[in-house]
């Protein structure tokens, strides 16, 4: 699995060119094509009583987006990259899915903002809905001002949370494909505290050892590909512990598989990936399981 083409979904306020620049390290792996997507929400240009459809507003928003994209595109074109863009009126998720399919993109990058005026730019539900519907990996980028961590190169030191779901195992393959960009990967498995209650110290140690051994096997896969890898087992609430592990490991990115608890679309995204994508201070990469052949 390689990232050759990424879709950069932006409304500009929450995801700017600095974010894109930080992703250009993926060129060391395979990135060669960036597609900008700006969706003008229908509500902003919809019919108003006494005004009708606000065509002037649509033109204004389109041109404002176009001017920004031209400027960004010029920088990328001059580096020999391929660039495309979509400026469309519609629903965010539907238009992003449509563009992803049309472009056959390998990664969707979207911003999550939740402070002050930025709060409503992408509602949590838009990101959630995209995560639920996309069969393409989604990187939820976090605004620099709210992270308090340096994310010059998000893929430099990912923390990969493993729960043995198909999505998380696919994430191993995905990160392996980025061996020229990733310097070190930390693998973490969070053992559920509730499951350990009432069991003996020996049984708890045994559980830890088993998880650790399984993680070490994956570490060996990474090491064979030339990526330094370390295994960690944490205990407790997965949301809190994954965040803690990211901090402990000075990670630049959290990577999670979408847990396929039920077999099909509706439930393929478990609550931990969604919560971390929306609440963590770290950029979060969600890898869905392989799409079943229809």
């Amino acid at each position, binding site marked *: 699995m390689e990232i050759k083409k990424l879709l950069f979904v932006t409304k500009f306020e929450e995801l700017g060119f600095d974010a894109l620049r930080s992703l250009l390290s993926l060129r060391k792996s395979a990135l060669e094509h960036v597609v900008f997507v700006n969706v003008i929400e229908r509500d902003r240009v919809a019919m108003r009583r006494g005004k009708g459809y606000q065509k002037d507003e649509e033109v204004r928003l389109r041109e404002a987006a176009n001017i920004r994209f031209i400027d960004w595109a010029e920088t990328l074109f001059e580096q020999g990259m391929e660039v*495309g863009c979509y400026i469309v009126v519609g629903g965010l998720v539907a238009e992003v899915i449509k563009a992803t399919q049309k472009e056959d993109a390998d990664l969707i990058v979207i911003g999550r903002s939740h402070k002050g005026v930025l709060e409503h730019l992408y509602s949590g539900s838009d990101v959630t809905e995209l995560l639920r519907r996309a069969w393409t990996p989604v990187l939820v980028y976090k605004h620099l001002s709210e992270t308090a961590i340096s994310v010059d190169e998000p893929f430099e030191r990912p923390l990969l949370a493993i729960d043995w779901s198909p999505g998380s195992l696919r994430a191993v393959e995905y990160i392996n494909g980025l061996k020229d960009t990733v310097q070190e990967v930390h693998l973490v498995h969070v053992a559920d505290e509730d499951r350990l209650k009432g069991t003996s110290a020996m049984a708890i140690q045994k559980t830890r050892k088993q998880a650790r051994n399984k993680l070490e096997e994956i570490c060996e896969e990474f090491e064979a590909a030339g990526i330094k890898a370390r295994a960690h087992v944490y205990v407790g609430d997965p949301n809190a512990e994954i965040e803690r592990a990211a901090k402990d490991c000075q990670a630049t990115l959290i990577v999670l598989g979408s847990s396929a608890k039920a077999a099909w679309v509706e439930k393929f995204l478990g609550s931990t990936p969604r919560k971390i994508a929306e609440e963590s201070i770290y950029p979060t990469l969600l890898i869905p399981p392989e799409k079943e052949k229809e």
Partner: protein
Amino acid sequence: MSKKVLVVDDDPDVRLFSVTVLEENGYTPLEAEDGESGLKMIKAEKPDLVILDVLMPRQSGVRLYRELKTAKALKDVKIIILSGIAKKTFLRSQKALTEFGGAQIPEPEIYLEKPVEPEELAEVIKKVLG
């Protein structure tokens, strides 16, 4: 028979503008909304001239121009670039692609930066098609 001119641009307003200019000046306009469908149409319709945008979905004008200029059967297709992307950028991008191992290709004869007046476009088309 009137000459065929293909407009490759993702912006429907720009396509409408170019098509109107072409029709008013007695040409047969064809349309494509991105580089990929533009290339298919060039192969199928063999237009006399292509008016090509640069920043488009699926395949940009940078790559399509390069593909046309390096394909034996297509390298003589006349091209006018009509784009919001600066000519300087277009040339630098081609230079970068050449440095990455691509073939050396000629500069576009005509490069117009958007927006253009209808008279200017009509005049340039006339000049290129003779």
